[in-house]
């Protein structure tokens, strides 16, 4: 593998690449890809302390409003803690690919729950199945407490079916619009009746609420239950195609390529094994094609985690992480709706582009982007000025530039652009970069991170 290919793989299967981990790497594609999967065999769930919640008797919450309030207050804090914990987990994960897949699937099986225990449980369910059996994955999702709440599954009862989950299951999670009828929704909703959960978020099946009658779904009539419906859906190759289309636009290129997606669907339809599908993608020659490299606009999380991967940075206040996510338009655990974040160009508007261009210098360099084309007095003056204004910065961070310099020791400063920037650089901008002084690796890194090109991966 060339360095460029390695970087591409690590930007897509992870959150960027830095040269320190290059030395130990094999250049054989198969070995590199294998090691990605090996490292992600294990699962490290997020496990926050929920003792405040688990010891509580749910009946007491109803009886004592003050207790309810107390729990609500603690839960509000906990959900933020869950957000920070997740973001930090993404920065240096043990199971890189698994975390990347988890992030992908949470924007596929989109769910939002303000109960932090359920939200954590959901997050861990997704993490558990992220590289596993898609069939078991969908079934687990259909029984998960957070999802049962989010799409009204727990209100779906024999006498009063609620179609919300059944509709999204087909429209957003498995088949895509236009591959089912309104009647399929009605009938399948009946199959999911009786699903519920207890106070701790464990699945409970209420037999008395379940509709055991015959349902006619996709031209077949039987006493379907929820799992049967999912099996029926997956027996349609359209489901494999739909998922592969999403995987392709997320991991390969936002512009779909029908031939490649069909090839993926052929692999996926065999056994719905996610690991096999991803291995096929990362092993394909077309994955490394020029047109795919640097073709994607980074999501806010990719952008933020990518910065922190290149220049290790400590956030002194957790809430800064939250503010940054909000400003950039992607707060984890808080998707806009069940369709998730639209991604790609939708990340970028006049506000977010300016914030993105400015953020690296704010987080890493007191907001200063050097202009050392002349190396003159003006720049010294600005540097002093920016140092003094440190207290006024919106975020409190401690960047570890020593670690950066150590990690990037083997990269010549003038070649830094090849590592920091994926894909092509605008001609005019490339000319401009030539005029900049390369005396400081740190300054040059900041300059590169402050370019529109840095938004791509």
């Amino acid at each position: 593998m060339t360095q460029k290919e390695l970087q591409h793989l690590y930007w897509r299967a992870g959150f960027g690449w830095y040269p320190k981990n290059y030395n130990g790497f094999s250049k054989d594609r198969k070995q590199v890809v294998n090691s990605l999967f090996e490292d992600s065999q294990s699962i490290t769930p997020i496990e926050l302390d929920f003792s405040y919640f688990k010891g509580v008797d749910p009946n007491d919450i109803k009886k004592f409003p003050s207790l309810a309030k107390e729990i609500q207050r603690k839960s509000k804090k906990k959900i933020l803690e869950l957000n920070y914990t997740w973001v930090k987990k993404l920065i240096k994960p043990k199971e890189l690919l698994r975390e990347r897949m988890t992030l992908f699937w949470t924007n596929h099986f989109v769910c939002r729950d303000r109960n932090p225990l359920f939200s954590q449980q959901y997050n861990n369910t997704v993490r558990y199945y992220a590289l596993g059996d898609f069939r078991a994955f969908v079934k687990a999702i259909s029984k998960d407490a957070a999802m049962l709440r989010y799409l009204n599954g727990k209100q779906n009862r024999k006498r009063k079916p609620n179609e919300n989950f059944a509709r999204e299951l087909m429209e957003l999670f498995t088949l895509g619009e236009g591959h089912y009828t309104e009647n399929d929704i009605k009938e399948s909703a009946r199959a999911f009746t009786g699903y519920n959960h207890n106070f701790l978020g464990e699945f409970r099946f209420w037999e008395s609420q379940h509709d055991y009658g015959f349902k006619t779904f996709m031209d077949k009539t039987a006493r379907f239950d929820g799992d049967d419906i999912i099996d029926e859906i997956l027996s349609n190759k359209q489901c494999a195609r739909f998922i592969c289309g999403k995987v392709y636009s997320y991991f390969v290129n936002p512009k779909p390529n029908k031939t490649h997606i069909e090839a993926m669907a052929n692999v996926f339809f065999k056994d719905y094994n996610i690991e096999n599908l991803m291995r096929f993608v990362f092993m394909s020659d077309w994955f490394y094609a020029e047109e795919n490299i640097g073709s994607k606009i980074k999501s806010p999380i990719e952008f933020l985690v990518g910065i922190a991967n290149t220049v290790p940075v400590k956030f002194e206040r957790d809430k800064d992480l939250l503010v940054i996510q909000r400003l950039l338009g992607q707060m984890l655990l808080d998707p806009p709706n069940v369709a998730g974040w639209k991604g790609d160009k939708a990340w970028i508007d006049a506000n977010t582009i300016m914030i993105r261009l400015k953020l690296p210098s704010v987080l890493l360099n007191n907001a200063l982007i050097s202009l050392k084309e002349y190396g003159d007095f003006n720049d010294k003056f600005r540097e002093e000025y920016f140092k003094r204004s440190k207290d006024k910065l919106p975020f409190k961070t401690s960047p570890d530039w020593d670690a950066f310099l150590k990690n990037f020791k083997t990269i010549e400063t003038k070649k830094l652009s090849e590592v920091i920037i994926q894909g092509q650089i605008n001609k005019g901008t490339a000319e401009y970069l030539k005029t900049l002084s390369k005396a400081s690796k740190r300054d040059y890194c900041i300059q590169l991170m402050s370019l529109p090109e840095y938004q791509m991966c």
Partner: protein
Amino acid sequence: MDRRKFLKDSALASSLLFVPSFLKAFESVDATRLGYKRLVIVQLAGGNDGLNTIIPYNNDIYYNSRPRLAITKDIIKMTDDLGFHSSLAPLRSLFDNGELSILNNVGYPNPVRSHFRSMDIWQTASDSNQYLQSGWLGRYMDMYGKKPYNAIEMDEQLSLAMKGEHFNGIATNDYKVLYRTAKDPFFESVHNHYNDAHLNEHNLGYLYQTMIEAKSSAKYIYENTKVKLSQQDYPKNALAKQLKNVAQFINSNIDTKVFYTSLGGFDTHANQQDKQARLLSQYAESISSFVKDLKQNGTFKDTLILTFSEFGRRVKQNAANGTDHGAANNVFVIGKNLKQAGFYNNLASLKDLDSNGDLKYEIDFRTVYATILSKWLNANDEVVLNQNFKKLSFI
């Protein structure tokens, strides 16, 4: 002499020297500016309790449903049935002048009681089981907007309402900061060197274009906003600050069709009374100052203000002296020369509630949007809303 004053003075000097060109400039201003209609949105986030805002003070069910929460004191009686919460006193003169229209029972079929989802529905103008990824104002701007500054939100983050399929408005709670950021000399250099050949179609081209647009928008807003224009005093609260900025923009005649403002905190599940009274007076005082400011500058007649909340609240109060999430609610429309001012319609029955015990909707909120789009903004509402909604007669 500061730069602006210099520009102003030199413009004046040149206009005196070259009278014909001055007149010509004046003509073009006339053509584009006269009748330039603007829309200001005020979002009351959290679900304002409409029943304690516009109070059915002669209705026994109201008092029986809210033994400790019903308003009994200082109601400003407007009709035989309905009165204002005392905090709305500053709006009384608007009501009396025919500059305020109150639409009761506005909502949508199969109401959703999640803040989040219902706000989404209001902002995207979707059905309750439909998920749209663009907002109604954004889609309007898709057709009629050219520059991001044609739609400004007074916040750090752009609401879904202001995002179209292609168009995105500007969000800024401080346009000066935006301007200063955009002016970073490094970005200037990148901008000056940018070579746009062959890039327009790609994502990277889009990034550069957005950057350039952001810079020029920030510059446009900064250079065209006249700071010392307003003589009007505003109260000190978050909404007043936003509206004061909006007035500054409008009175400076900047080329913006839609402004988006918001006031939060209306989710009053517990101890509602004081909280809501405080918020309503913040709202009413801010609006009152805003309208005065516009009137002083002759811009009120071309401005329409729409106030909404994502839902109303349950008719019955809860045990914590608050109210839970409800459904239909009132909407305020403020402007000059309203066709139907005052109460547009009666309050829905408090007897005939939906199965949750909430008010039933009578006016689909999208008919309000359709009316504003077609009658005020002169836009094709059917394309923007993807459906043909009935038009109402408040404007």
